[in-house]
Every structure is written in structure tokens, then in C-alpha cells.
């Protein structure tokens, strides 16, 4: 009897604590949300050049620093540690998908699509170590990436289903109060989440939520759904910081030229070149 009481009390305490925690989560979100500057269309103004910091582009899951895979690069090619950006720390892979992820990791030097300057996909493009620029037009919001010149058009008015599959997917957006919500589908399943082999299929559906936390900072939350690869939807979140240099500008990173030797070099007639 007494044990039962203890169990009930314990359960109530746990529930109350989790309630407090969820309150904390909600309140921390609402209190730190600001009323962003407005565009002439009265929507929050996210125009600008933004960039994610941290080392999550190496691996979105928590990871310790480790040596690089290209020996000659020494400390410069080594992987810095990261606390991870995945809610709960671990991506909920299906068991067979986890095997493939681990295999991807072992073979990342040849399998990572970004090494070949392929379009990085979504959300990976957002947190690569390159800036992105948001340009808000009247019916489209452009997200322009320095890496590989990757481009996303967010359809705010003339929304359609993805006409075919693509590397960067097909994005429809809407405003929910202070938050820009972007739903992206129509992926070709050939992109990864990071440099550690974390991957998805062409059934990927990405829902991103961008909210201003200060004039210089956006919060970026992204929900990932892909029933082929994951047992349940999962989330990542991180800040995007405004590039504050007065001359900040996206520069060309036309990397196709830089990977020609990697992709086609062995097909050269004169191998001494």
C-alpha cells in the first residue's frame, strides 16, 4: 500500500516536473521571440545574410573530436567536436537504415555527395560553413547559398506540388505569426544531412520554422519525416546569425571546377598531367 503511494507520488512529481519543463520550454520560446522588423508587405523581415555557427555540419549528432580522413591535411582536416543539434541527441533510424548510415560513415570519402560539389539538399545547405542570403520578394522568398550556388525558391502564393524530384526539393512557405514555416518535399533522395553519413530517402519531408530572436539572430527549427529511414519524425534546432560585416556579400563558390580532377581525372588520356 505504502509502496503504491510512493509510486503514485513519484509519478505525480515526474509529471509535474515535465509540465514545468514544458512550461519552461514554451515560456523561454515566447519570451525570447521578438516582434521582428517588417517588410513593406507587413511580414517579418528576414532579409539579410545569415550563417550557422558550430561544427554540426560534420555530424548533426553529438560527437567528440576525431582525426580527419585525409591524412595529409593533419590538424586542418581533423573533425572538431560538437554537442549535436538533434532533439534527444540520436536520430531514430530504423535498424537496417542505421546499418547503412554506419556504412556511409565508413565510406564517406567516396560517398558524401557534397564532396563532388553536388547540390547539398535541405536542411544540410542551411548549416554548411557558408553564408546564405534571404531575399523576400512579393510572392517568392529566395534562399541563396554560397556553397555550389545552391538556390531555393520558397513559393508563398503560387503553391504547387513538386513537379518532379530534385536535389534542393520543392518548397512552399507560409507565415504563422512571427514564424516563417517552409514545407519541402520532392527530394531525389541523393543528399545527406552532414559529413558523417546521416541520410534520408526520397520520401523526406522537411518542415522548417524560422523565427527572429533578435535583429541579429534567427532560430532555425527543422522537423524531419521519412518513414522509409526513420521510426518517427525528429527535430533539429540551432541559431542562424546575421553576418554583420558592412561589406558582407555572397561570393562565388563555383566548386564544379574544383572537383573535375576528382570525378574525371582517371579518364584523362595523358595520366602524367
Amino acid at each position, binding site marked *: 500500500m505504502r509502496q503504491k503511494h510512493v509510486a503514485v507520488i513519484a509519478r505525480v512529481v515526474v509529471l509535474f516536473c515535465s509540465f514545468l519543463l514544458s512550461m519552461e520550454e514554451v515560456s523561454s520560446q515566447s519570451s525570447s521571440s521578438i516582434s521582428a522588423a517588417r517588410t513593406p*508587405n507587413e511580414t517579418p523581415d528576414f532579409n539579410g545574410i545569415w550563417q550557422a555557427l558550430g561544427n554540426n555540419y560534420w555530424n548533426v549528432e553529438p560527437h567528440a573530436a576525431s582525426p580527419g580522413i585525409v591524412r595529409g591535411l593533419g590538424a586542418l582536416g581533423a573533425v572538431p567536436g560538437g554537442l549535436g543539434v538533434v532533439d534527444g541527441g540520436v536520430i531514430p533510424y530504423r535498424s537496417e537504415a542505421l546499418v547503412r548510415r554506419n556504412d556511409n560513415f565508413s565510406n564517406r570519402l567516396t560517398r558524401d555527395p557534397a564532396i563532388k560539389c553536388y547540390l547539398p539538399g535541405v536542411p544540410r545547405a542551411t548549416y554548411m560553413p557558408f553564408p546564405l542570403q534571404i*531575399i523576400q*520578394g512579393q510572392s517568392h522568398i529566395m534562399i541563396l547559398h554560397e556553397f555550389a550556388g545552391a538556390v531555393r*525558391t520558397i*513559393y508563398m502564393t*503560387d503553391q504547387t506540388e513538386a513537379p518532379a524530384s530534385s536535389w534542393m526539393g520543392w518548397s512552399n512557405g507560409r507565415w504563422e505569426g512571427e514564424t516563417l514555416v517552409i514545407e519541402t518535399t520532392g527530394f531525389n533522395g541523393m543528399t545527406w544531412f552532414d559529413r558523417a553519413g546521416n541520410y534520408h530517402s526520397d520520401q523526406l519531408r522537411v518542415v522548417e520554422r524560422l523565427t527572429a530572436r533578435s535583429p541579429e539572430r534567427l532560430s532555425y527549427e527543422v522537423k524531419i519525416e521519412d518513414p522509409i529511414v526513420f521510426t518517427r519524425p525528429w527535430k533539429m534546432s540551432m541559431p542562424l546569425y546575421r553576418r554583420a560585416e558592412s561589406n558582407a556579400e555572397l561570393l*562565388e563558390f563555383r566548386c564544379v571546377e574544383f572537383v573535375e580532377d576528382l570525378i574525371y581525372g582517371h579518364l584523362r*588520356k595523358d595520366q602524367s598531367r
Partner: protein
Amino acid sequence: MYLLGNVLVVGLVVGGVSPKSAAAQSAGRIEQLSGTTTPEYVVPRTPDGVPDLEGFWTNQTYTPLERPSEVNKAFYTVEEAAEIEEGRFEREVAQTSPGTIPDVHYDFTQFGLDRSQSTFARSLRTSLIVDPPTGRLPPLNTIGLERARKVMEERERIGGRWDAAENNQLDDRCIIMRGAGPPMLNAGYNANYHIVQNADYVMILVEMIHDARIIPLDGRRYPSGRVRHWMGLPRGYWEGDSLVVETANFNGKNPLEGSSDQLRVIERFTRVSDDTILYKFTVADPDTWDRSWTAEMSMKKTIGPLFEHACHEGNYGLYNTLVGARLEDRKADEEDGLQGPEE
């Protein structure tokens, strides 16, 4: 149809029709271009109060950059222009005829890549170049000629097209399209653009190889001459109802008609009707020509959206052709081996 000074202007958009019927419909609805907007046209404005250039546009045209050598006038008659278009339509349709050599290439008409099925700007002009008045590029100066000679020498030195990936044209390598610009020339097909504006930038997305031109309007300077881009660095401003974009800091690796990294391009975008932007550009390069030259054309409103043009990612053609070339090499070596060394 309306009169503009003493220039007859007729707008037309052809879209989504079969090549033959488009050709049949074409007669008589051809425009001449002019540098000014019609007095009665009120340019639409964005909520920021500047001219609204947003939307999907194409500068597809049959008009060549330079006036053909056998032509010695600035404008065709309507009948002459229609006849030339008819000839071009027929050549494009021929690409779909089974068993013909052109048919081995893409089926342009099946995929709607031919001009006859796309919206295109029609013009009586015999060339896009309006200055020099000959409609032709100025001659290369001594520096330009010397560079052209070196380019030819280098081409000889590097060997055949299928000896290495880098021996191919930039567009076959999916690095950049020749017409990506600036100036934005209609290089073959998909000469489509998506313009999006905010208060501080104009963005022009070139469909081919998803090249986005991000044009700051805040009067900032060009960066150090060490920072050079394939497409140069653009700086823009509004002058009356025209968007003016000046581009410098080219890397010179995608030359425009033999230009160098000293190329400078000034483009002027003026909306002259609901479905037309007049696109005029002046090109100068002291290391190539002794004078600047100017061309103009229309950008016509077209239907969106633009789909992702992932050229490099799908470049099986370059890879497989190189594989084929190396197999041929090996076969030739084996045959030589069978014959044995010549006595």
C-alpha cells in the same frame, strides 16, 4: 499596336503552340525596339516604391548578336523577318525527324526546348548590336588579338576534346553557360530568368545552372581586384525607372566574344509594358576593343516556375564519353599490339 515617336512597336508573345502554327501565326506581329518607354505606360511599383521587375522573363530570340555579313540594314521588313523565322522553325522541327542526323541530339521540340514553342521576343532588328551602327562587334585591338592567338595555341597544346574533361567547353562541363552573363544572352535554350526584389537587392536567377545574380543596390564599392568571379561582381542602382547594373571583377575565364578580365558591363532594365522589359547593355574592355559596344533586346514575360537545373549533378554525358574514348584508346593499343612492331 501603338506609335512611339516614329517607331512602330508591336508586342507579341508566342507560347504553348505547335511549331508550325506558331510560324503561321507569326506574320505581321513583330516589334522594333526603342530605348525609351512609352509615355503612357505607368511602370508598376513594388511596395518599396521602385519599379517592379519581379516575375518570370525570357529573352529568347532569333535575332543574332551580330548582323549577318550579307545584310547591310538595321531592320528587316516584316515579310523578311517572318521568312527567317519560318526557316528557323523548320530547322528546329527537323530535329525530331526520325533517322536524321539532328534527331540523334536532344529532341528539342518534344521537350519544349525549341524557341518555336517558347515565349520569345520578336524583332525586326537584323542584330542585337545597335552600336557600332554596323551592327557588328568592333575589331579586336592588338592586346585582344594577341590573347586570341595565345588561346588558340593553348587549345592546340592541350589536345583533343575527349582527351580530358577540362578540354571541353564550359557549358559541357556544367561550370557556367556561355550566355549566363552578364550580359545575359540567350545561349541556345532555356533563356529564362526569375527576378525577385527587396529594398536593397535585385536577384536575377538564370535558369541554366541555377546561377543567381545577387545585385546590391546600396552603393557599396567593388571588393579588391583579387576577388574575381566568373560572372563578375554586380553593383546596381535605380536611374529614373531603369535598373542600372554595373559589373566588374570578372575572372576572364568565360570570355564574352574574346573579352579579358578587364571587362565591364553596364546593363539597363526598363519595364516598357506589362509583358516587356527593355534590356540594353554596353560592354567595354580596353584589353579587347578600342571602343565600347551596345546591344538591346526584349525580355518577355513568361510562365513560371523555373525548375532546378542540376547540370553538374546529371552530367553523365561528359563522364560516359570520356569512358568511351579511353576504351577506344585501349582497343587501338591492343590492335597495334596484335600487328606487332613494324619492321
